[in-house]
């Protein structure tokens, strides 16, 4: 079930009403939330529910002995078992064909003929997200950061909680579990904020991301047939699209959770208003980057073992982050190049002094945006050939002609202005310092614009493929 479909528009109010009707019975409320989450997920393909159940039960039952055992070797053994099972499922469904093909190509290059079957399987939606959430729980229990829960129902809900199940934010047990194990009270302010955030998320997805997607489908269909400025503009449009798409999804997820009285972690904080690449990665896909920081970067030594080791750790994290995004060479290159671009910051002192960029920071923000846009062009490439075609057009293409798709700026300009004006808030619609009537006109206008702009064949959220 996608957030920008009429099915979700019917599903969420029904869940909301029943959920709060059950407010005096926590167990029933959680059971209902779990059932709703499984319906939400099973809407794609009910067979994928089996994988979630395997991940959930494996994690739950391996965490129990980790939390209740004093022998370190035993605890480590259970952690390893859990990580192997979870990553094994992820590797099978997401990476098997990628590595099988890569190995076959490698052997072929060495003159050895290898021929083995590849798996003809669908990638279960959101598998990367809930797998990471499950692994973080196991490791947190091992580290003593969180206690192994003996309550299966809240734990199952923790893994499957529908607003963040398929594309995050990737939650941690010490943040979400306490909310699921204690009674929730309906909070009017929280619910209103949730509704506004859903509206803003939908606007970003439908009005901006989908529109950019339509432009890009044409502009990048055959890069060799385009002029160089078109590829430059495509990079800008895709940077806007992926931000509007993913942060829009996160806003709808966080807003939906708020309607149910649950707070999720923030996933984006206006990343394109960053003043350095380091700051960019602190504001972009925050829940994933903090996951890598906590479970990969810091265990590798973080920045405590000298600058060169720090550089190596950064490269490892970003290469893995690229691989997490997809089983394709372009994602690995994207991650690696991002890591390389972050390395200079290891040798430079931090310059950001304020929480939010000001007008004077705009040139630096533009620089960061330009770098991010170049990186995302690699991300957008269908494969290495496609990437090669874009580079070819940039190097040898016609720089004298105007780009195709300039009219897309009519959408981007107001969006960027609104984001800039609202950058000190969690999201621009959170508190509009305007008279009530004007605010309502804005809400109604946005609702109607979303309705009129959404096509029947919705464009899938980009991050669903990960």
């Amino acid at each position, binding site marked *: 079930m996608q957030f920008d479909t009429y099915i979700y528009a019917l599903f969420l109010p029904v869940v909301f009403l029943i959920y709060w009707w059950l407010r005096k019975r926590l167990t029933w409320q959680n059971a209902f939330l779990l059932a709703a989450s499984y319906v939400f997920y099973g809407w794609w393909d009910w067979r994928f529910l089996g994988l979630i159940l395997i991940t959930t039960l494996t994690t739950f039952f391996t965490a129990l002995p980790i939390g209740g055992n004093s022998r370190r070797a035993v605890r480590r053994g259970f952690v390893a078992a859990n990580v192997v099972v979870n990553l094994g499922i992820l590797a099978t469904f997401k990476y098997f064909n990628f590595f099988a093909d890569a190995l076959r190509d490698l052997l072929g290059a060495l003159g050895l003929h290898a021929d083995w079957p590849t798996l003809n399987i669908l990638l279960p939606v959101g598998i990367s997200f809930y797998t990471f959430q499950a692994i973080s729980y196991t490791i947190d229990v091992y580290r003593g950061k969180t206690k192994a829960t003996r309550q299966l129902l809240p734990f199952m809900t923790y893994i499957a909680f529908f607003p963040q199940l398929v594309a995050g934010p990737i939650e941690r047990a010490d943040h979400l579990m306490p909310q699921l194990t204690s009674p929730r009270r309906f909070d009017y302010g929280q619910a209103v904020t949730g509704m506004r955030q859903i509206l803003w998320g939908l606007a970003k997805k439908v009005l901006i991301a989908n529109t950019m997607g339509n432009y890009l489908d044409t502009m990048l269909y055959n890069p060799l047939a385009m002029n160089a400025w078109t590829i430059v503009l495509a990079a800008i449009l895709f940077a806007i699209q992926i931000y509007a798409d993913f942060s829009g999804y996160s806003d709808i997820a966080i807003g939906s959770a708020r309607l149910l009285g649950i707070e999720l972690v923030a996933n984006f904080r206006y990343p394109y208003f960053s003043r350095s690449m380091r700051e960019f990665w602190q504001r972009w896909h925050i829940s994933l980057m903090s996951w890598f920081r906590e479970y990969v970067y810091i265990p590798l030594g973080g920045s405590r073992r000298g600058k060169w080791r720090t550089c190596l750790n950064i490269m490892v994290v970003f290469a893995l982050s690229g691989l997490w995004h997809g089983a394709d060479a372009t994602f690995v290159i994207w991650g690696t190049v991002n890591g390389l671009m972050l390395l200079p910051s290891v040798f430079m002192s931090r310059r950001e002094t304020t929480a939010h960029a000001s007008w004077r920071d705009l040139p630096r923000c533009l620089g960061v945006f330009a770098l991010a846009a170049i990186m995302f062009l690699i991300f957008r490439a269908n494969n290495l050939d496609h990437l090669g075609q874009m580079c070819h057009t940039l190097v040898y293409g016609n720089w004298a002609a105007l780009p195709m798709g300039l009219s897309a700026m009519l959408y981007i300009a107001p969006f960027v202005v609104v984001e800039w004006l609202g950058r000190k808030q969690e999201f621009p619609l959170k508190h509009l310092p305007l008279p009530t009537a004007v605010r309502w006109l804005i809400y109604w206008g946005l609702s109607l614009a979303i309705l009129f702009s959404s096509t*029947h064949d919705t464009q899938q959220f980009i991050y669903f493929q990960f």
Partner: protein
Amino acid sequence: MKRSFTHFILRCLLAALPVAGLILAYVVADPFRVIWPADDAIAQWGDSLQVNINQGHVSAMNFMRYNGERHYDSFIMGSSMSQNYKASDWAAHLPAGASIYHFDAWRETLQGISDKLDFLEKQGTTVNNVLIVIEEEMLHRDADVSDFRFMGSPITSPDVGTLDFHWRFFKNCLSMDVIRFFLDPQGHASQAVSQGIVTRDVPSRIPELNESYYAQFDSLIAVSPDAFFTPERLAQREIRAVPTVDGPQMHGPREQQARHLAEQLHRLGAHYIILVPPRYGRPTLCAYDRVVLAEIFGRDHVFDFSDHPTMSTDPRCFYDRDAHLISRCCKQLLDSCYSTSISLHSR
């Protein structure tokens, strides 16, 4: 909590007002005639302009509406090319008392016909006679899900959800082209015709038979053919002396669908004929497909007129460019089928 919860619900309802208003207006107006009985208000703009209906859904709705009183047992099925085979012409070849219904759909597919037979079976309808018009193009056509006007009806197609079906029509109603037309039909008629929203070729309809026919064209053709087949009209048609032959299509999914359809017809004990009509200057059925169709449905049941020596080369046999045979010719083909020894089911 209770007060603030109620307050919140009221605010949400207030926020949803414009969207709810739009949906209400759409349901009341039903511009594409998919909610309320289509024939009650189908010619909204007089005789000269009619919204392009989803004939598959209108067929299903009319069936549900009239079957209780008429107890249909004989069905004309196929795409828009089955439209001009009149119930009265077919009735002459059926046992007395046969109750005929046009169960057609524009851009019908073999799967769509099969779904309709499944639907009839589930409804407990007796199916005694079936006339299936399979034009050559149907043999390489899959269900058209991209165009809402041709998608299957949720009443007969198990793969189409009711909500999804109506949502698509609602969403398409919100396109600027459609809104402009509905606000000022005459002012935007030409544009709407070219976009396929409406048609100027408004047929007469007999709702209880679900039959559309071009009464005004037929009478003009009968009285003064040259007044209908004007030089301008004929000039629009591609003149090809010899129709081409398309490659084999009856393999893979389409062959399976045809075999399933034949099984259904046998299971229902229906007497059926498969009629392949001619198209002007268009590919005829290839020999391979003809053999496969005969093997699947039975040699005595398949009548291939796709290479009809006169009709496939005479533009005056068609209402439009190349596809829709005039009703007089349809009658001729029907008579040709029944001039052979077909033993009809007698109730």
